[in-house]
């Protein structure tokens, strides 16, 4: 019996309007409660449907301690199944991805399942005659998650039967995914070019918070982006900028730049920075791409799509996307102080290859275990995870630009350096954690 499980009031007391208690990052019991109360009731990103293009294609993933398989059925529909044999509980599918050729087969006793999880065959079935097998959960097969939604190829699942509908949960925040997909002349995205898997020695919320934290780049990334800026500073102003310089240098823009960039807050913890412009706004144009966009959408609409330059959009708690550069980072909590961040690159279907090359370079420069930008972020997360143990101050400050008016409504547009996105995330967090889950 822990301190928090039976005590919603105590959980609520950890999140105050302008600060949070350190236990939210340190306490293993709260991590367990997140995995039971927050993640299962939220809509969690599972994968992209371009990763399972053909019938029988699957990928396996573990999310919030749940082994899952996402599979394209024979009817073309994408299913998300719990990756557990209905018999003795073995994980049925062990490969990261593949094609199941019409059925999954458990490696232990050979029970087979259709792509929708239903039980297909059991060896020597006569042994179950006269038993309660048919009425038991074993006969139901691999449990299929009922609540699955696909938006522009992004597959989300809500593990619990309880919770908001997909549309209620994400609302207008889905416009960030729309803008990323609309940047393809065909309106479609494809995951391509491999996945960067970066192990973070920190609580998952530190990573999520950092994505809309605009007060850190000019400090934490001064050594990387600042070095790139200094290496380039003697070049004439009209010298064509290598992509590296174009991508690194905006990270060390000044406070005024990030403040004017703006941040947009939605309910349930979602938000994005770059309401008016962003660090991606000044990339050199690619005329062939712009021509294809105009051809596909018409002049006005094409320019409206490309004028958006959102920085990071947070789909709380599992996904962050960068629409303007077509990369996404997926958050997989492993333990209270361990998180896996997986970074994927998306191809804009029918766009010139140069767009993909830009995205590939960006994700390697910024999101990789070998990224100099990532190293300094990771260093800070680890330092927080350690530093929070210090006695004398149990609170983490989220005061920047706080106003009492947020109590009534937090959704809206704010100045870019406000910590309002983090306050919004913790509001969603507290409301989920303080709601005792249904038994079991």
């Amino acid at each position: 019996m822990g301190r928090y499980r039976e005590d919603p009031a105590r959980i609520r007391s950890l999140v105050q309007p302008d600060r949070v208690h350190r236990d939210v990052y340190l306490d293993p019991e709260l991590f367990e409660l997140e995995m039971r109360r927050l993640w299962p009731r939220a809509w969690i990103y599972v994968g992209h449907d371009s990763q399972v293009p053909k019938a029988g294609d699957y990928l396996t993933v573990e999310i919030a301690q749940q082994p899952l398989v996402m599979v394209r059925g024979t009817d073309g529909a994408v299913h998300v199944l719990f990756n557990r044999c209905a018999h003795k509980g073995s994980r049925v599918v062990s490969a990261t991805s593949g094609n199941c050729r019409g059925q999954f087969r458990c490696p232990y006793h050979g029970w087979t399942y259709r792509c929708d999880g239903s039980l297909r065959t059991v060896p020597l079935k006569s042994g179950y005659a006269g038993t309660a097998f048919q009425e038991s959960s074993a006969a139901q097969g691999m449990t299929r998650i009922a609540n699955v939604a696909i938006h522009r190829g992004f597959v989300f699942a809500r593990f619990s039967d309880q919770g908001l509908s997909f549309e209620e949960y994400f609302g207008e925040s889905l416009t960030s995914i729309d803008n990323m997909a609309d940047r393809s002349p065909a309106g479609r995205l494809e995951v391509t070019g491999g996945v960067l898997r970066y192990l973070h020695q920190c609580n998952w919320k530190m990573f999520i918070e950092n994505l809309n934290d605009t007060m850190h780049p000019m400090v934490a990334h001064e050594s990387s982006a600042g070095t790139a800026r200094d290496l380039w500073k003697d070049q004439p102003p009209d010298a064509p900028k290598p992509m590296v310089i174009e991508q690194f240098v905006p990270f060390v823009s000044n406070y005024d730049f990030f403040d004017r960039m703006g941040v947009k807050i939605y309910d349930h913890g979602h938000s994005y920075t770059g309401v008016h412009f962003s660090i991606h706004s000044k990339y050199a144009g690619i005329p062939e791409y712009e021509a294809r966009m105009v051809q596909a959408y018409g002049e006005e609409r094409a320019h409206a799509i490309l004028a958006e330059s959102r920085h990071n959009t947070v789909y709380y708690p599992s996904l962050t996307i960068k629409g303007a550069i077509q990369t996404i980072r997926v958050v997989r909590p492993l333990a209270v102080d361990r998180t896996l961040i997986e970074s994927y690159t998306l191809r804009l279907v029918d766009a010139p290859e140069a767009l993909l090359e830009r995205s590939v370079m960006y994700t390697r420069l910024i999101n990789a275990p070998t990224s100099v930008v990532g190293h300094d972020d990771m260093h800070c997360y680890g330092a927080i995870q350690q530093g929070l143990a210090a006695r004398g101050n149990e609170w983490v400050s989220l005061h920047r630009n706080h106003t009492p008016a947020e109590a009534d409504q937090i959704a809206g547009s704010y100045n870019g350096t406000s910590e309002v996105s983090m306050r919004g995330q913790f509001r969603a967090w507290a409301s989920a954690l303080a709601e005792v889950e249904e038994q079991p």
Partner: protein
Amino acid sequence: MSDAKVIDRAATDEAMSDRAVTDEALVDFVYHEARLIDEKRLDEWYELFTEDGLYWMPLTRGQPEGPAHTSLFYEDRLLLQVRIQRLRNPNSFSQSEPSWCQHVLQAPRVQTRSPCGSRFVLRTPFFYAESQRDQQQIYAGVAWHHLVLRGEALRLRMKKVELLNCDAALPSIQLFL
């Protein structure tokens, strides 16, 4: 791109050398290159690369060369310079406690020599340790050195590092394998 193609592409712009480069000289280059990294003599290391030099660590097995697939490293000289200068920046917070590394190389083998005698590919299995105070990571892999003769000197056109666990979830790797 296959190793052979890399050689073909460059063979035309390379003058014939009148003296054959010995295997020993090629192998010594590989040992020297690793030692420069381990001893943090990174300016000397940087100078080993040709103007179009590339330091490449693929993300997947059998990954084709080129900018259309994500890599762990795909660094031209400009990016290498950013990394080297950053390591010396007092505000490189992830290096406020510095990392150190050690290569342990299996004997390098000369895999190919171009017909004109100025391009070489060597294969070197290795272990690599990177430590930072109480944390030590150990990696294994194969390094491919694509060397060219520039005048009398051997230079590095590409170092390709095939990491054994390239598909694993990895912590920060801060130096050079």
